[in-house]
């Protein structure tokens, strides 16, 4: 009975459960972490339930208010959405468990973290389910504001500056998006993605809308050269927040870009994919090089995110043949979510332990926090694209598409990016093996924080072993068939 209800309402429950959790945790600050964990577990079950219904009954559609497009708003859960929801649920659960321990010593921050995080989760789920352009705008804003609040939570000047920059960029990106929607509405008379897809034509309003929306989302996704805002924000936030920003928030805007690209824009501007690919390639190289230059661990990880975002965009020009490029990009998104969350958690552990995150002074941490270093290294495998890991599988597919189409330069970027990633990951791991004496007071780290990081890292490796299940989910009602 409960099970059936859950299967039937899994999609809307994915929005209502985190929302209810947020409201409860706001009203009852004393029970925040309990409410938060309960919500996270609930969301995870809902996501699993949705996956099950998707696999048995196919694409799910929910007409909010019973109206249906174009008058009403529709929610739609196909394989792509469900996969993103599932990823968010799993990584979100990990982040929640981690945050519960992390904020145990900072109760005054926990009471803000939980409602903000649950509202951010609401925004993520709502975004992945939305099939309506304007509704997507609202979810984008909810996402941006809650992410800003979370970023600023650390309270340091760096965090506030990072949050401010992020807020301005995010708001500006949303405005570009909204202006694009305005043009689309006045051209098509509605904002339902499926209906708009039938209406857009190669005329200047459509192109303008495309340019506005794509640039707004590219800005929010921090694609090179619009990545400038990402490292300060992601590196200065508290560890659980860094984890969720890098692992999930970036993915949401990328998902949206991908969705709109596939459904609306790709026939409109077939040349644009080369530009996106070029920027992606530049992001891979530039992000990796800057990651190599960083003195602080969290900045290194943040720049690694910049580079990994680049891979996601390399898929655009590769996707004209078959599905493997999109599969690769999505697989990279999935494994990066797990790996990057784990890396930021490991970095958070090291930082708490040592009181700083200067890479050169991470002496002997391998002995003191072996699990965290292991988590970092294993997550690093996925980032480097070494087997067995989700990152490897993703890179395999991307490389396959690149070589099949003779896009040598992109293939070279993919290969070189992996080498650079190895260089920066091992810069950190290398210091873990030093044998310098203890020079500072070390703060003990709860074991749970290390284990959670490790489990997420292992998850990113398992993605490299169990490849079929995610692909099966992705294949349901897929928009990824691509042009041939």
């Amino acid at each position, binding site marked *: 009975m409960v099970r059936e209800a859950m299967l039937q309402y899994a999609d809307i429950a994915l929005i209502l459960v985190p929302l209810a959790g947020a409201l409860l945790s706001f009203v009852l600050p004393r029970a925040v972490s309990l409410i938060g964990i309960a919500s996270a577990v609930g969301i995870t079950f809902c996501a699993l339930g949705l996956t099950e219904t998707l696999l048995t009954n196919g694409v799910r559609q929910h007409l909010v208010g019973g109206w249906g497009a174009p008058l009403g708003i529709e929610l739609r859960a196909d394989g792509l959405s469900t996969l993103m929801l599932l990823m968010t649920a799993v990584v979100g659960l990990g982040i929640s468990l981690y945050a519960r321990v992390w904020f145990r010593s900072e109760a005054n921050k926990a009471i803000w973290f939980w409602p903000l995080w649950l509202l951010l989760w609401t925004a993520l789920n709502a975004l992945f389910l939305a099939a309506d352009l304007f509704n997507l705008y609202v979810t984008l804003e909810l996402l941006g504001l809650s992410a800003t609040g979370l970023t*600023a939570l650390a309270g340091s000047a760096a965090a506030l500056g990072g949050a401010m920059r992020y*807020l*301005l960029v995010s708001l500006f990106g949303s405005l570009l998006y909204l202006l694009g929607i305005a043009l689309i509405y006045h051209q098509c008379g509605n904002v339902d993605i499926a209906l708009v897809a039938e209406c857009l034509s190669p005329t200047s309003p459509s192109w303008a809308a495309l340019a506005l929306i794509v640039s707004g989302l590219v800005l929010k996704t921090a694609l090179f050269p619009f990545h400038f805002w990402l490292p300060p924000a992601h590196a200065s936030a508290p560890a659980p927040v860094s984890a969720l920003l890098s692992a999930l928030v970036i993915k949401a805007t990328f998902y949206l870009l991908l969705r709109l690209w596939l459904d609306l824009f790709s026939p409109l501007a077939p040349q644009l994919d080369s530009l996106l690919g070029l920027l992606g390639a530049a992001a891979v190289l530039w992000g990796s090089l800057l990651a190599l230059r960083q003195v602080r661990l969290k900045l290194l990880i943040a720049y690694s995110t910049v580079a990994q975002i680049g891979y996601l965009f390399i898929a655009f020009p590769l996707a004209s043949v078959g599905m493997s490029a999109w599969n690769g990009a999505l697989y990279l998104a999935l494994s990066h979510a797990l790996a990057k969350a784990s890396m930021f958690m490991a970095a958070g552990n090291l930082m708490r332990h040592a009181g700083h995150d200067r890479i050169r002074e991470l002496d002997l941490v391998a002995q003191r926090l072996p699990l965290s270093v292991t988590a970092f290294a294993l997550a690093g495998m996925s980032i480097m694209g070494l087997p067995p890991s989700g990152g490897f599988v993703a890179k395999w597919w991307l490389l396959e598409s690149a070589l099949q189409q003779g896009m040598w330069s992109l293939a070279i970027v993919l290969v070189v990016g992996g080498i650079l990633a190895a260089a920066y990951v091992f810069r950190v791991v290398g210091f873990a093996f030093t044998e310098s004496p203890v020079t500072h007071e070390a703060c003990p780290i709860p074991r749970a924080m290390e284990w959670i990081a490790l489990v997420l890292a292992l998850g990113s490796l398992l993605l490299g072993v169990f490849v079929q299940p995610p692909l099966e989910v992705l294949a349901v009602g897929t928009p990824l068939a691509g042009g041939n």
Partner: protein
Amino acid sequence: MAADDTRVSAVTPWHFYALLGVGLFSLALYTFIVQAHLLRKILAFNIMGSSVFLVLAGLAGSPAGEAPDPVPHAMVITGIVVAVSATALALVLMLRLRDTSGRLTLPEDMGG
């Protein structure tokens, strides 16, 4: 809704509002980019928001005296609430930034 050929491209007063909107948008965007002071950036964001609303609602005027399309108006109201929320958060963030760093501008880039 396929593009149907009966619709003609012509200039109406509603286009004028929209043009005003994009003009304002461009101007405010210039301020948003060029001005370092955060308050000005936030104000510029607000003007940009208003100009987007102008485009959205301005074009919703009906051609033949019927009631104007309510959907863009509803969207504008939603957009205003969002803009108000964002502005409030941005202002408080700005003041906190001033309290901690003594500056009303964004910090320099980190790490490159």
